[in-house]
C-alpha cells in the first residue's frame, strides 16, 4: 500500500469522528479498511462485555459464517487469548494448531482461512477488545503490517471512546455496553428486513446501511425504527 493511501484512510477515519457519529458504521468501515490496507482476507472486532467474555461488534463482511466464527470466540480462541494476555496472537498455520482451540480451528479451516492474527485494543493499561485478522494464505504478517494493524486497532479504540470523554473506568463500561446493545439492535433489524424481503442477512445489512447513508441517518437509529415498526422497510 502507498503512503498516500494510508494517509487517506486515517484522514477518513478522523473525519468520521464528529459529534453524533455512527459508531457501528465507523467500526464496520474500519474493518473494511483493515482488509484493504493489511492485505488480509477478512477482519472483525470483538469487545469486552464486562462479564468476562468477548462479543462481536463489527466485521468486514456480514456473511453469516464470518460472524459465527467471530462469535465462536466468546470464551476461547486467539481473540480471548489476546484479550487476556494483552499481547498480539499470531497463528501462521491453522493446520498445525488444531489442538489449541479445536472448535475455532475447525470452523476457520472450513471457511478456508489458513492463518489468523489477533491484536489488542488498548486503553492505557486496560484491554477492551481485539482486532481479528484472517488470511487464506498461511504465514506471518510483516512487522510493518502488524504495526499498521495495531494503529488501526487503536483508531477503533478512539472511535469507541469518542462519544464522550473517557475520564473514568465507569464511562468506559457504559460505552462498551452501549456499543454491544447497538449491535444487537442491528441484528434484530437485519432479521426484520430479511423476512420482509425474503433475502439473506448479508444483503439485509447492505440494504440497511445503504438506506442509512442515503437518508443521512445513523445505522443504529434506522435499525431501531425498523424493529419498532416506525420505519417500514
Amino acid at each position, binding site marked *: 500500500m502507498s503512503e498516500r493511501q494510508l494517509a487517506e484512510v486515517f484522514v477518513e477515519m478522523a473525519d468520521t469522528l464528529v459529534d453524533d457519529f455512527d459508531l457501528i458504521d465507523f467500526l464496520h468501515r474500519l474493518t473494511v479498511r483493515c482488509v484493504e490496507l493489511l492485505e488480509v482476507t477478512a477482519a472483525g472486532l470483538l469487545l469486552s*462485555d*464486562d462479564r468476562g467474555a468477548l462479543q462481536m461488534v463489527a466485521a468486514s463482511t456480514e456473511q453469516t459464517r464470518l460472524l459465527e466464527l467471530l462469535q465462536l470466540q466468546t*470464551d476461547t480462541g486467539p481473540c480471548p487469548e489476546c484479550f487476556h494476555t494483552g499481547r498480539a496472537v499470531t497463528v501462521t498455520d491453522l493446520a498445525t494448531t488444531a489442538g489449541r482451540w479445536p472448535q475455532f480451528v475447525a470452523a476457520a479451516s472450513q471457511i478456508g482461512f489458513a492463518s489468523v492474527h489477533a491484536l489488542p485494543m488498548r486503553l492505557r493499561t486496560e484491554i477492551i477488545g481485539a482486532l481479528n485478522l484472517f488470511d487464506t494464505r498461511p504465514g506471518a504478517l510483516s512487522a510493518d503490517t502488524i504495526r499498521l494493524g495495531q494503529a488501526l486497532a487503536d483508531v477503533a479504540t478512539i472511535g469507541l471512546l469518542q462519544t464522550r470523554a473517557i475520564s473514568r473506568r465507569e464511562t468506559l463500561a457504559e460505552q462498551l455496553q452501549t456499543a454491544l*446493545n447497538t449491535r444487537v439492535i442491528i441484528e434484530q433489524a437485519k*432479521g*426484520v428486513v430479511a*423476512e420482509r424481503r425474503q433475502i439473506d442477512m448479508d444483503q439485509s445489512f447492505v440494504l440497511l446501511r445503504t438506506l442509512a447513508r442515503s437518508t443521512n441517518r445513523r445505522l443504529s437509529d434506522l435499525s431501531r425504527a425498523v424493529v419498532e415498526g416506525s420505519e417500514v422497510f
Partner: protein
Amino acid sequence: MSGDRMTRIWAQVARQARGAAVSVAHVCAAVVDGVGVDGAGVTVMVSPTVRETMTATDTVASGLEDLQLMLGQGPCVDTFVGGGPVLAVDLRSPECLARWPAFTPAALDIGARAVFALPLQVGAIRLGALDLYRGRPGGLNPAELADALVFADTAGMLLLDAAAGTQPDLTELAWQREGPRSYHAVVHQATGMVLVQLGCAVDAAFARLRAYAYAHDMRLRDVARAVVERRLRFDPDPAPERSADDAS
C-alpha cells in the same frame, strides 16, 4: 469464565426464592448481598412513555425510583434512553449535579451517595432498569460490575418471560445450559424474522422463540438457526408450529 458466573448468580437468586417461583424481587435481594450495595430496585416500562416501579428492597431504593419517575431525570432515565449502564459513583461530584440538577440533591437528601443504573434491554427490547445504590461513594469493582450485569440479565429475562406467560424455573436445564441471555447474532436475527411472521412486537417475538426452545428442550441458538435458515416458521394462529426436526 462467564458460564461459572451465571451459575453462581442463579444459585444466589434461587436461594432468595426459597423454593418459590423466582421473581425480580428475588434478584434485587440477591444483588444487594452479591455486589455489596445497600439497596436495589427495578423499574419496568409499561408502555413507551409509562414506567413504574416494580420492586425495591428498601425505602431509599423506592425513593430513588420515585424521584426519577417524578423528575424525569436520573441514571435510570438515561439508561432507558442510551441502552448502556449509567454508573454515578459519587452524587456529590460536579458532573452528577450538572447532568441531573434536580435529581442529584434530592437523591443525596434521601441518603444515596452512589447510584448504578443497569439497562434491562436486549437490543431494541426495552424492559426496564435495575437500579442499585450505596450510601457511601465509590464504584463497583470489575468483578462486582460483571456480577451486577448478570443479575440484570437475569431480571430482564424474568420480566420478558413473565410478560409472555412463561415462568421458567432457574433450575431448568434451558437456563443452565444457555444462560439468561444469548449474544449469538442468529438469535437476534431470528427475533426480527419472527416479529414479521407473527406481526407482533419485538419483545413478544423474542419470548416466543425462548418459549419454543423450552418447550422442545432445544438450545435457543438452534431454534434461531432453524428460523434463519427458513426451516422453522412461527404462525400467528395457535396451530402447532412445525418442529425444526421435522422440517430439516
